[in-house]
């Protein structure tokens, strides 16, 4: 007998008991218990998905930026050499800019600036390449690269050109 004087229920109350009909009784009832089991797994899965999505975005952006930098360097190199080839000292026409523009365009780049301070011995260009990803464009903008080309005059130009024996 319990302290209330009736029934077979024993302390503690949450222990399992049987009703008169033999059904299992629980206190508190199972349906009223709020269980947090499994919740952490859901949060972990969501965090993992977010982390991976961020990783994919970062990797894609870095790849795009790296390819754009490599393209810009190659384009600047080609444009500077093409411009330098127009030097009269190299037998060119004397107008470097058209050749530099053509070389930059062939590399999907845009010629944005030239330096002709040392012309016709030296020619420098700056080109711009647009990354493919709008995210990279928004963060870093177009990628620019600068290259310089120069000719070194021969110590004996006439001999170098074959005008007289060395």
């Amino acid at each position, binding site marked *: 007998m319990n302290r209330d004087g009736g029934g077979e229920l024993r302390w503690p109350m949450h222990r399992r008991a049987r009703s008169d009909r033999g059904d299992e009784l629980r206190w508190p009832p199972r349906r009223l218990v709020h269980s947090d089991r499994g919740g952490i797994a859901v949060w972990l899965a969501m965090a993992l998905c977010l982390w991976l999505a961020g990783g*994919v975005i970062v990797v894609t952006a870095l*790849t795009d930026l790296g390819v754009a930098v490599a393209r810009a360097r190659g*384009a600047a190199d080609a444009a500077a*050499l093409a411009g330098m*080839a127009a030097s009269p000292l190299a037998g060119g026409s004397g107008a470097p800019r058209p050749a530099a523009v053509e*070389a930059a365009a*062939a590399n999907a780049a845009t010629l944005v600036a030239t330096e002709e301070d040392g012309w016709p011995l030296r020619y420098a260009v700056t080109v711009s390449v647009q990354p493919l990803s709008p995210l990279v464009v928004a963060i870093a903008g177009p990628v620019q690269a600068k290259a310089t080309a120069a000719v070194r005059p021969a110590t004996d130009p006439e001999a170098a050109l074959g005008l007289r024996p060395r």
Partner: protein
Amino acid sequence: MLLLSLLLHGALLGADLVAAQTVAVQAARVAAVDDDAAVREAAAEAAGGRPLQVTLEPDATRRAPGDMVTATVRLRSRAFAPFGATVWCPGRAAMRVEDT
């Protein structure tokens, strides 16, 4: 773990894309001053022995000083190879043919 591995292979693919562009620049640079055989040799060296396809336009027989020569390369990436996928990374560069 599988997703993490995929992400790492994506990063490897990105590095190979940059490498392919670098190889293309090197190929165009050599094509501006030398013949196709020298270009393939230089490109293979720049690719570090990885499988590579190089296309030059125009080829050595039709190149003249002042023309633009375009080198298009396809570099086989090591990325995603464990998953059974073969990925080729493209690269393209152009250079003015020098008067040698």
